[in-house]
């Protein structure tokens, strides 16, 4: 019972990056527990996925071929059966939207303690995860009790596994009860429309710091004076102040401009996922401890309502 079972993820025929990251996280953990690393590949083109996932450090790959797209009933039942078969010490799952749609049910059904959104894991006879609280303001070490545990890991915290592996790939038969009361009827792309911010070279992006909808005019003036493209973090779109196609982040667009000017944006991890690839990141924020400064190349610690008018002045 020292093995690690890591669960991979795919969508619409493609493995998602986090699948390669759970291999790295799982391998590190299995090295510490002294066990093997097992991967679960569930639904879709499992044979092709398994070949892609056979990277350095993977010992066994178990494919469950039921279903095409993600379905939480299939995932929960497949993992439950694999857990019974393999008796792993830790199950590692992605802290993705779909991960959060099945991992809590897996933990509940198997009576496993669950630690979600881990950004670090350590094993020394017992499992301790590092996780953030209060919107990334603090980090915590959390001991996860019990003999066996379930963990979800944050995307892009572990590097993707590389190399060519020598895993034993085998089909795992599960008797899946498909009499489920939820049915996926389709997918929809959102965020189309008049502008594609992912093509922009200079983005002025606004966050919660703008406080009121009418204050957006100030940012629009800056956008006009500098011929920039306007974008925002999630709360602005949630409030209905800008359309969805302006949202940068995990659930919005990924952008890679020459310059990303983040104004009044704290830099939550979900936002950073959408803009960390910018060549130059400039942040304006009143809070010198805001995480946005961790990834910024240039910064102003100050009040946007004082700085932005001066900046507009510079280009008038």
């Amino acid at each position: 019972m020292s093995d690690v079972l890591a669960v991979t993820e795919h969508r619409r025929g493609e493995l998602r990056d986090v699948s390669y990251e759970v291999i790295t996280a799982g391998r590190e953990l299995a090295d510490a527990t002294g066990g093997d690393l097992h991967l679960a590949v569930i639904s879709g083109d499992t044979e092709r996925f398994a070949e892609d996932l056979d990277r350095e450090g993977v010992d066994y790959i178990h494919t469950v071929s039921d279903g095409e797209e993600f379905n939480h009933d299939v995932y929960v039942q497949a993992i439950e059966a694999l857990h019974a078969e393999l008796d792993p010490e830790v199950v590692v799952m992605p802290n993705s939207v779909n991960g959060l749609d099945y991992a809590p049910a897996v933990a509940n059904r198997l009576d496993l303690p669950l630690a979600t959104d881990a950004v670090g894991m350590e094993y020394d006879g017992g499992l301790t995860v590092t996780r953030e609280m209060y919107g990334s303001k603090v980090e915590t070490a959390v001991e996860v009790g019990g003999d066996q545990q379930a963990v979800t890991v944050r995307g892009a915290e572990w590097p993707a596994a590389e190399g060519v592996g020598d895993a034993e790939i085998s089909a795992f038969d599960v008797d899946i009860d498909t009499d489920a009361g939820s049915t996926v009827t389709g997918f929809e792309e959102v965020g189309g429309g008049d502008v594609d911010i992912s093509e922009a070279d200079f983005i002025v992006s606004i966050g919660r710091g703008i406080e009121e909808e009418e204050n957006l005019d100030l940012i629009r003036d800056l956008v006009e004076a500098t011929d920039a493209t306007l974008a925002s973090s999630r709360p602005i779109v949630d409030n209905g102040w800008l359309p969805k196609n302006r949202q940068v982040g995990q659930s919005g667009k990924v952008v890679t401009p020459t310059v990303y000017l983040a104004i009044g944006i704290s830099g939550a991890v979900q936002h950073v996922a959408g803009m960390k690839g910018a060549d130059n990141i400039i942040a304006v924020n009143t809070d010198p401890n805001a995480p946005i400064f961790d990834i910024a190349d240039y910064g102003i610690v100050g009040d946007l309502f004082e700085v932005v008018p001066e900046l507009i002045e510079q280009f008038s």
Partner: protein
Amino acid sequence: MKVLVTVKEVAEVADDFEIAGTEVDERYLEYDLNEWDDYAVEEAVQLKEDGPADEVVTVTIGPERAEETIRMALAKGADRAVRVWDDALEDVDMLDVETKTNLLAAVVEEEDPDLILTGVQSGDDALGATGVSLADQLGFQWGAVVNALDFDADAGVASVHRELEGGVEELTDIEIPAVLTIQTGINEPRYASLRGIRQAQSKEIAAKTLGDIGLDAGAVESDLTLTSMYEPESESDATIFEGDAGETAGQLAEVLREKGVAE
């Protein structure tokens, strides 16, 4: 149809704060209704206003202090509230998902709702797991990270959009009884009206101990132990412009010109 909404009072931390032991010093905390739950309450109240729901009940795990926050949800249109707390919970520094599942499931058994709405996560410990765990425990259907909901009362089916990463939404039909975890942006939460605030004063908040809901202290033994808390080390190597607003804006403008993105 009865709708149950789980609401949590969360602590928000000031920009500058101190850590005492494994907690943020109380002086730097402000308490508020969890942002995601605000959207869940609004969605439930709209279901009542639009017809399908007859009653909206909120349930909270929290000490007496939380009643101020619960009143906010009542002022926005929830009909009544249940608050679970017990001396046995005082000493637990981090409630794990299993504990919250046990407590909420016990309340669900008493209330027998058709639909349960939770926030996707809480703003403080952000485990993001209680709703789905609860659904599994109850044998309900579920959907996580829902950002659009269309309810067909005759069929008893919730047609939802689940907000996946990268601007893609999954469209799913979910039969009730079900738990939906509600994402921000699904609606525009209202502000409580003066009339709503006045009415909330006379709405019921039923305080329940573990014994009241048929549980004992064993149901709240947490498997998660917070052993340390610290401020993440700043990894910043940003060039910070110094000076007043005019001076810093001038330096910023220079960088924009240098990079060739603005003239």
